[in-house]
């Protein structure tokens, strides 16, 4: 694996759109070629080289490429979006769409990320060491195909509307979350190790949500089924299992209705 190191040399005046900042776009390129890769600030077409000093070189393929980014990226969008392989480490906060639609590889953001990160994620590993904004791992507007696969871990808190229309994969929030968690979810697994505010599992069709802390207000469409001992992300405990959303449609399998499940740690 070869490493490219990018260091921010100029802060964008507005916001920099750099969907080209991925191992896929860098693969097979040397530093001077990477510098010429386009980036955008509104109507202005610019290059990565304009905003970053670039050292090292990429591997022959995305899988053989590691990208390390230093400096303040808090006004940069789409970092790691659609990446399919390789590794990225961002030593900064980042803006929207970080890791959006990623299908593989590993993306680590050492700071906070803004909204729409991990949007429509299909695979790979995405670790956010700080907090995440809203619409984490949600679907793009209108799409019924939200997160499909992969693992997304947030070590801090996350905002609202996370995991909307989730179909697969796993999201772990080690801190707290705000409202509307797993809305319209039809598969996959969400683990919230802190507290959840309200509206957890609204319109839940299928899938599992685990909350270790408190939920401020339970949805009326959930009913207690049983207590069960489980090991969830390394924690063994007794959980109260709720079935829901009873107001929503549910598929049938072998004549049995399949409900979504909400587990609340006792």
């Amino acid at each position, binding site marked *: 694996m070869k490493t490219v190191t990018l260091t921010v040399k100029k802060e964008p*005046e*507005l*916001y920099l*759109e750099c969907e080209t900042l991925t191992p896929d776009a860098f693969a097979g390129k040397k530093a001077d070629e990477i510098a010429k890769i386009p980036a*955008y*600030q*509104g*109507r*202005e077409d610019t290059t990565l080289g304009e905003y970053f000093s670039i050292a090292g070189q990429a591997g022959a393929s995305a899988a053989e490429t590691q990208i390390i980014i230093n400096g303040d990226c808090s006004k940069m969008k789409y970092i790691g979006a659609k990446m399919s392989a390789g590794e990225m480490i961002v030593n900064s906060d980042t803006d*929207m769409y970080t890791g959006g639609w990623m299908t593989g590889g590993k993306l680590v953001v050492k700071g906070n990320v803004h*909204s*729409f990160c991990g949007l429509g994620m299909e695979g790979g590993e995405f670790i956010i060491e700080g907090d995440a904004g*809203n*619409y984490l791992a949600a679907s*793009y*507007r*209108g799409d019924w195909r939200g997160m499909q696969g992969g693992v997304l871990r947030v070590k801090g808190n996350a905002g609202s509307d996370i995991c*909307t*229309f989730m179909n697969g994969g796993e999201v772990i929030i080690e801190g707290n979350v705000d*409202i*509307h968690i797993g*809305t*319209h979810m039809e598969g996959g697994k969400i683990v919230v190790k802190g507290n959840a505010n*309200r*509206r957890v599992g*609204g*319109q839940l069709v299928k899938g599992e949500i685990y909350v270790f802390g408190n939920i401020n*207000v339970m*949805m*009326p*469409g959930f*009913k207690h089924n049983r207590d069960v001992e489980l090991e969830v992300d390394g924690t063994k405990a007794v959980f109260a299992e709720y079935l829901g*959303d*009873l*107001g*929503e449609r549910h598929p049938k399998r072998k004549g049995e209705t399949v409900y979504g499940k909400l587990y609340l740690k006792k």
Partner: protein
Amino acid sequence: MTKVVKDVICPFCGTLCDDVEITVSDDNKKIISVRNACAIGAEKFNHTSLPGRVTRPRMRQPDGTFKEVSYDEAVDWTAKTLVNARKTLMYGWASTSCQAMSVGHEIAEKIGGIVDNCATVCHGSSLIAIQDVGVPSCTLGEVKNRADRVIFWGCNPAHAHPRHMSRYSIFPRGFFTVKGHKGRKIYCVDCRYTDTARCADEFIQVQQGYDYELLNAFRTAARGEVLPDTVGGVPKEKIYEIVEELKGGRFGVIFFGMGLTHTMGRNHNIDIAIALTRDMNDFTKFNIMAMRGHWNVTGSGQVLAWQYGFPYAVDLSRRTKARYQTGETTSVDLLIRNEVDACFNIATDPGAHFPIDSVVSMSKKPTVTIDPHINMSTEISDLHIPVAMVGVEVGGCAYRMDNVPIETRKVVDPPDGMLTDVELLTKINERVDELMGAK
């Protein structure tokens, strides 16, 4: 001699009443009287002759005062601002014609603007709910002719859409509704007792911020599942009772407003209200409709949709593609995050409606406001360009809250020499072409 103009369309709210009759002086200069319109609508027509109306562009001077300039100077300044900016917010559009929007979008596509309308602070949340789950709906005439269960949820047409109840939803007699009000059961769900609640047969007081939970309870009850004793302050017995009444109707409709779109959860409140409506179609006929505010905000969504595929917050800044994301390309977010470097307001007043932080942000950028009147936005702008009032001094197409398009009528002449939106935008477009050709 005076003359009467009939079938006039009221350019105030999304109800778009089209039966207004206006008496004008025989020289087409002055409105003498307005019939059939509500108090707000009548005032809108009378605005044309308010004293102190600005009839020529005004440019901000270094000392903060405005100085009158010619339309040519105003067009030049505007075009230069648009061409020099990297990303311009082009906001408003809700009180102009679809024809004007088309010209505006052509400019936006050239200069890399972001075109947003006032759905962004209004029913945008309804639009994103519909993008997520669709919507079963109908035209307002269907409500008049068929509805026997009418629910007003988080809206107050008695104040915001004053003739809605008499024209479409509560009182009119239609083909299958010969008993008018007597044949309909009216429900009002709100966190406070409004004047609309006063017209309802049943008022359901929901605890503020519990609409989503209450709607979830309605859906759960409709499927015959158990409920907690109360939800959002409403006893479960009441919820079961109402659900049975709704199922027993022939044709139900839910009208909703800011009480759902702008309380906690926003689009999700609409989303689940739509889901309830969908469920009800397994038992009877049920529809749902947003009470759109500005008279042609719906039209802006329509034109943006057929040209770019998105109903508001359309980001053309790359000039090679159109993008859309509520929370990113929406005006308030763009301003608060300082993502744009110039502002172009037309036919809506962000100064009056936006959160203060975004208004402050706007005031620090080069800003032009195109509006017939002095408003809060003109006062923070570098340039105010007055134009003829669409729907009063010039015609043009508008879309009603149920998406029915109606061509508005010219009733009186605009003040001498005053441009219409279409004329002004066409001039700006031509000047932009000249400037960009020269670059």
